């Protein structure tokens, strides 16, 4: 066997450093508990791991079900080349969310309790079930890629038949899940700034997840291009970008009407940390990208498309962290800032995600289009003929 020494590149060095730091933090988390590894406190029981790893992680994985719906339910076949990478991203995203949860839960070894102890009144219960079920669905949606590589056409043929019901279940689960992350905050109306609090939070979470998830598909295509030295489906992606910003704009319009009807828009007239954060969020996350991508010239320019996707994601990050952390006023005036360990674990999870994606995409036909059922059947005949 040849000894393989991977080439040293800038990002590999960074990634390895991050993983080393992350492992050290993992050690602290395991043996020292949450206080040794995080800055969480009784005043701030939820921090970066919930706000970023869970809320953002799940939200950005929304590209998976959005593209899936476009391709398989609305049968707009031309988006097919985007489907597999998007599903893989979503699948890995959800696995990382579970991974993140294991760090964040005080008693992660009790995570399975959600299966046996039911409390249907709890939004968290709904979230837990959606995560479990949807991860399973994503697995089923992704597994054809693996089966194709090993030519299990019989199973593939069968999977094709149950494919559409699975997709529908997946889309419904995602809808519930994305929105329920917003519902989590419905129960603290008195703790949150009314700029963000609204009975419509679940709706906003759903809409913004679709919008940002689609931008994530673009972002991820650029990452793949970078990692594999390949081109991007520029024409398709620029359409995706347009859909993304339009969806976000719709969400924004609903939000504005909501603010006016509830009278809370007055909160935006005074300049303070809250209103500034909100302005920043909509400016970066919605207005600038919308203004850019609505114009054909910017949309079809690869750099601007990339910049817009990055902005949408940045705005999405702001939104989720604003809702989960910034908008919540601490009882005692203590504020929260994530510890080095929380940051390093988060970065490590991202590195693991990117590595897994790269590894899987290299070994399995992720960037090829899914075959049609007829093709499977043809292959099957071929096989039996030769045997």
């Amino acid at each position, binding site marked *: 066997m040849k000894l*393989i020494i*991977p*080439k040293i590149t*800038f*990002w590999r060095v960074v990634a390895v450093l991050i993983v080393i730091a992350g492992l050290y933090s993992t050690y602290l988390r395991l043996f020292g508990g949450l206080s040794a590894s995080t800055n969480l406190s009784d005043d701030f029981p939820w*921090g*970066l791991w919930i*706000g*970023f790893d869970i809320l953002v992680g799940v939200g950005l994985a929304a590209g998976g079900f959005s593209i899936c719906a476009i391709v398989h339910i609305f049968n707009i076949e031309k988006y097919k080349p985007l489907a597999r990478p998007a599903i893989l991203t979503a699948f890995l995203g959800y696995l990382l969310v579970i991974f993140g949860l294991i760090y964040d839960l005080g008693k992660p070894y009790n995570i399975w309790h959600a299966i046996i102890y039911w409390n249907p009144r709890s939004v968290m219960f709904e979230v837990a079930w959606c995560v479990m079920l949807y991860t399973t669905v994503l697995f089923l949606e992704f597994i054809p890629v693996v089966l194709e590589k090993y030519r299990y056409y019989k199973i593939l043929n069968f999977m094709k038949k149950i494919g559409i019901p699975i997709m529908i279940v997946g889309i419904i689960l995602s809808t519930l899940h994305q929105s329920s992350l917003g519902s989590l905050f419905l129960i603290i109306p008195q703790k949150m700034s009314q700029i963000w609090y609204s009975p419509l939070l679940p709706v906003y979470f759903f809409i913004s997840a679709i919008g940002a998830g689609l931008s994530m598909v673009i972002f991820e*295509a*650029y990452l793949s*291009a*970078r990692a*594999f*030295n*390949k*081109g*991007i489906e520029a024409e398709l992606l620029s359409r995706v970008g347009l859909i993304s910003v339009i969806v976000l704009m719709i969400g924004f319009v609903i939000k504005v009407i909501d603010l006016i009807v509830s009278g809370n828009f007055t909160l935006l007239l005074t300049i303070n940390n809250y209103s500034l*954060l909100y302005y920043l969020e909509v400016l*970066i996350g919605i207005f600038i990208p919308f203004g850019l991508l609505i114009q054909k010239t910017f949309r079809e320019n*690869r*750099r601007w498309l*990339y910049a817009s996707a*990055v902005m949408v*994601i*940045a705005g999405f*990050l*702001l939104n989720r*962290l*604003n809702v989960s*952390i*910034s908008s919540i006023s601490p009882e005692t005036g203590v*504020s*929260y*800032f*994530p510890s080095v360990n929380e*940051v390093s674990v988060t970065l490590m999870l991202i590195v693991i995600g990117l590595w897994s994606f790269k590894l899987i*995409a*290299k*070994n*399995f*036909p*992720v*960037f*090829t*289009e899914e075959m049609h059922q007829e093709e499977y059947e043809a292959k099957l005949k071929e096989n039996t003929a030769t045997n």
Partner: protein
Amino acid sequence: MVALFVVLTFLFFIILDLLVLKAQGKEHPAFAVKVFNKKFFFPKESLISTSHIWLQKVQNGMLKLGIDEFILKALGKLNLIPMKNEGEFVNKGEPFLKAVFGNRTVLFRSPIEGKINFVNKNLTNKVVNDCYGDDWAIMIEPKSNNLNDFKKSSEAIKWLHDEFNRFKDFIAAKSNEPELAGVTLQDGGNIVEGVLRSFDDNTIKEFEEQFLL
């Protein structure tokens, strides 16, 4: 604060990546405008050598030489620098032309022996664009008139197609980790023009050995 911190960290990594690319003299592959496709053009009256140099008969038995479209697509933006002066003699297989792309170079070997009569002066500091026309490289007075080794018209196009396929496999092998070399390209041929510039020097060297000798 937390929100700003996270967003700034995200943007920091994005910008850092672009800077890293810049420092390495590469372009983000996704920013490259054109997909390297199989459509090749080759002028009817020209001949192609296996080192991707075309030859064309001009007046007085002279031959005009230049690089082909394949090279242009594989390397992306490039400058050509002739390595010989007018009046010098060049042997078959001797390096006579240099292409500079990004901060890398490859050498081209002469497909024929002869005396260099003209060097294209317009090439200096010019990004090659019309490789079969204005951006020819040299004119040579060949020692022999035997041009049987070279292919033309449809045969030349077919050869370019073969080279393209070979190149795709080459890229597939190189863009993967060493341990995974040998798998075929997973994305159905979506390589971009100028793809070579994002590889390291060793790969460029190998490219030269496998495609330009």
